[in-house]
């Protein structure tokens, strides 16, 4: 299946991209994150939440169809 991964804030800096397409087998959010952290080691020490198709999900959530996955970090500035 094809996923669109979107990186926000400092995560876009860590990966040096804001968006990419990824072909991957059915997987949990945790498995997807492991793949991404292998690709972008700088993501390992970052804190963020994951949304699948614009809905916040936990790490056990299974992604089994084409989806948009967003990685959302907290911001503090004001």
């Amino acid at each position: 299946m094809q996923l669109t991964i979107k990186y926000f804030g400092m995560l876009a800096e860590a990966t040096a991209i804001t968006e990419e397409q990824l072909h991957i087998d059915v997987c949990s959010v945790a498995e997807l994150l492991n793949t991404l952290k292998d690709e972008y080691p700088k993501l390992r020490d970052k804190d963020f939440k994951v949304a699948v198709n614009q809905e916040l999900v936990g790490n056990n959530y299974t992604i089994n169809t084409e989806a948009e996955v967003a990685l959302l970090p907290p911001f503090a500035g004001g």
Partner: protein
Amino acid sequence: MNTFNSRYHRQIILPEIGEEGQKKLNSSKVLVIGAGGLGCPALQYLAAAGVGTIGIIDFDVVEISNLHRQILYGDSSVGKNKALAAKNRLEDLNPTIHVNAYPEKLTPKNAITIFSKYDIIVDGSDNFSTRYLVNDACVITDKPLVYGAIFKYEGQVSVFNYKKGPTYRCLFPEPPKAGSIPSCSEIGVLGVLPGIIGSLQANEVIKIALGIGETLHGKLLMYDSLSTQFSTFSIHRVDAEVLKVKAITKNFENTDYDLFCGIERIKEILAKDVFRIENCQCIDIREPHEQPKIESLNPDYIPLATLEKNISSYKKEQEIILFCQSGVRSRKAVEILQDHGFTNVSHVKGGAIALHEEQILKEV
């Protein structure tokens, strides 16, 4: 048409608002945390719209580097407290409203009393400890929280703790590692971005006050100013997170949010710098028998065990430098003075041993 109706005419003629809506705005009470990049535009629109009572809490002073984004201030405000300077400007913008300035730091000790006087809380702070403190105080006092935050060219907006929706902790239960996310002063920010995010916050406040439209409760709005894209994500209430906050209600005043966010509160200075500091009072907190003495610093000799008894002979704003033999007991001593309201206390890294070595180096 009276002055009241003239001032608000353009919004009163909106059918969703009318005179009744205007009265709702005039009777609403909104507290804005931080009169900085987000607080300034939010305050400006809330005051102009006729929100009847506005509270502003900020301990900071206006700096010239604030003026490119903190649009309530001008050159003449530099050096003035932000809450007071903002109040001054807003009272000119709309003399018919009440503005309460709190020129102090928001702490767990004053938060509940201040929050209780308002209907809606706006978070325009610039650090995680304040954001968790604001969230928890909103949960405890049961107030809707209009959240906004920025990073470089991006911003976030949401409405928390409203209509049984999620809270900030339901979205981010734990703060990120200390120092992992830089602030605007470190990485920069374009003035328009907080202008947009703060204005979105004002818009959410007005919708809540009027009971019109759909607010961002249960949603996180992300805005990217470089691509001009808004994205919205659904978020859910996590009852366990809300209960966790309710459980600390009784002990809330003593919660240390800096500690929670991993921020070091104890100021440490190097031995070589101690000899250069003027007008400070050094205190040797070791037992009388401990050597070597550092007489060149002309310290007071107060053993740690008797420190609390002798505290009253010092002024709380006075610069105080504490040292022990190696820098372990003096950390404890800093905590004791801080707990008694002392604000300018530090301790010497490496203690008397490091100071003694430094003295020898100087003599050589």
